[in-house]
């Protein structure tokens, strides 16, 4: 079954769009059902429904302030939705903590990765020895993100790393973890002109591991590297479908519509 050939995809998406219940409960997927989020009386997300099927890559595309990162943080469990459910393989995980979700295979690279004093890149990647890996694998993922092992393994993950270097370490960390779902929040921000190529390499690597990527971005070019996309604006899903189609729609409509005013 092609998830994106079912009702509601490849066209304007009504806000009350819901997944057919047989899909939610029978397939290996991560779903957001009627997720709403408000803060200080302000509605950040209107009821939204999303689904992410295993092994695919998805973008959540939209302008600044659209609510993209809020969606990511809700999926990861950092924020609790005002209402709605997060379902993993049909199980409700809305009440689970960040750690519990991570143990189920959901992980995330934040837009602004935190910095840690006195922790080396190698210690960080292996979570202080808790993640079983070997030097070859460490070397491989570091080199994939453009950081030679010899130069970086013993550097500290503190403010001595540039923003771009820190971002690359974070991406390497997720590659090593091989989660079922990797949420990448603006993975290209702070990176140099090689960003596009790097994102491609990372997506390929995740694809080989069977990891589903959920990529948050406001860059159409980055969204095009994933298979499917959601176009989000003002806390609503405006369009969903194949990335090419969604990006075309985004290019035509974004900043020309009334949604941005809320």
């Amino acid at each position, binding site marked *: 079954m092609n998830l994106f050939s079912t009702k509601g995809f490849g066209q304007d998406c009504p806000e009350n769009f819901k997944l057919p219940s047989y899909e939610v409960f029978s397939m290996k997927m991560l779903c957001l059902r009627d997720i709403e989020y408000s803060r200080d009386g302000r509605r950040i997300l209107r009821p939204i429904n999303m689904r992410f099927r295993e092994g695919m890559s998805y973008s959540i595309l939209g302008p600044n302030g659209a609510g993209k990162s809020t969606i990511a943080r809700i999926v990861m469990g950092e924020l609790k939705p005002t209402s709605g459910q997060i379902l993993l393989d049909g199980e409700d995980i809305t009440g689970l903590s960040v*750690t519990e979700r991570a143990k189920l295979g959901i992980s995330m690279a934040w837009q602004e990765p*935190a910095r*840690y*004093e*006195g*922790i080396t890149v190698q210690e960080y990647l292996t*979570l*202080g020895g808790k993640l079983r890996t070997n030097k070859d694998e460490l070397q491989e993922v570091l080199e994939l993100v453009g950081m030679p092992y010899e130069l970086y393994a013993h550097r500290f993950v503190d403010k001595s790393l540039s923003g771009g270097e820190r971002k690359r370490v974070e991406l390497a*960390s997720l590659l090593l*973890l091989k989660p079922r779902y990797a949420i990448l929040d603006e993975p290209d921000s702070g990176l140099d002109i090689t960003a596009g190529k790097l994102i491609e390499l990372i997506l390929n690597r995740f694809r080989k591991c069977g990891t589903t990527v959920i990529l948050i971005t406001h860059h159409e070019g980055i969204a095009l590297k994933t298979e499917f996309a959601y176009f989000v604006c003002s806390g609503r899903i405006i369009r969903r479908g194949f990335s090419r189609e969604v990006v075309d729609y985004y290019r035509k409509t974004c900043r020309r519509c009334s949604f941005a005013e809320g």
Partner: protein
Amino acid sequence: MTIKIDLTREYEALVEAYQREGLDTSLFGDRIAAIIISGDRIIGLNNVPGVKIRGEEIENGVRADVKIADNIELPFPIHLCTGYLKSEGYQRVIFEINVGKNSKVRFTSHCIFPYAKDFTHEAITRIKIGEGSSVLYDDEHVHGEGVRMVSKTEVDVGRNARYTGRFSLTKHRAKELKLEMVARLDERAVLELESKVKAVKDDSVEMKEVAYLEGAHSRANLRSTAIAFDRARVNVINEAYGFGDYAKGHVECHEIVKGDADVQTVPLLRVKNDKAELTHEASIGRINEAQLIQLMAKGLTEEEAAEFIIKGLLGE
């Protein structure tokens, strides 16, 4: 190394304590300039070319003079070992260290009080660093449950000289710790001070780092890290005085609190020269939420994430 025959057992007991703590026992070798103190006695002394250590037993302790000649660069650190192997008592040590010109030396100072239950250790260290020299002073402590420690270090950093002082008491009880480090900097002198302390239960810690940037183009970086758990009390005072033309100083203090601990930090920056520049950075409170969450998103529990972050901060 010259070891007093009647004190070989005490010497062996100290070496054993080093082994237990995973400290480097090769520091007791003949190639290392060293003074080994146990209680109020000097139980070992070794000099190497360019380093002259003289010790004198005083009431309740030891006074030692360490002289480094000009143009000396040592391949090994100078070992200052102060031990106290009884559970109760009082010890006083005074170190006078003079480093000549254009020398490069490293000190490893160990204070070993593994059985202390009711023990007071008082240390006074005066260090004078000649022009163009570089000194690294590592101060590591092994404490039993009941140590009251009062330590004052005064450093004179000469023209174009450099001093790096590192103090760490993170694996053992701090109990009662009063630590003061005061440095005066000459023209183009550089100072780096770094202190790391973990306080638990009812420990009481006071750390004070002071830099007088008197010389033109002198530079100082003072960093303190304190972790306070349970009912511990920690007070950190960092002071920097910008007196010289183009003097630059930075003061940084990071404190993490857990439980009912009581922590305060008091920075004082004073400039008496419009060309000097001083900056200050501090964080105090619980572990940064973003640091925790981002590690938890990799499968660590909150406790595991906190432990990992603290280990990094303390350099363990």
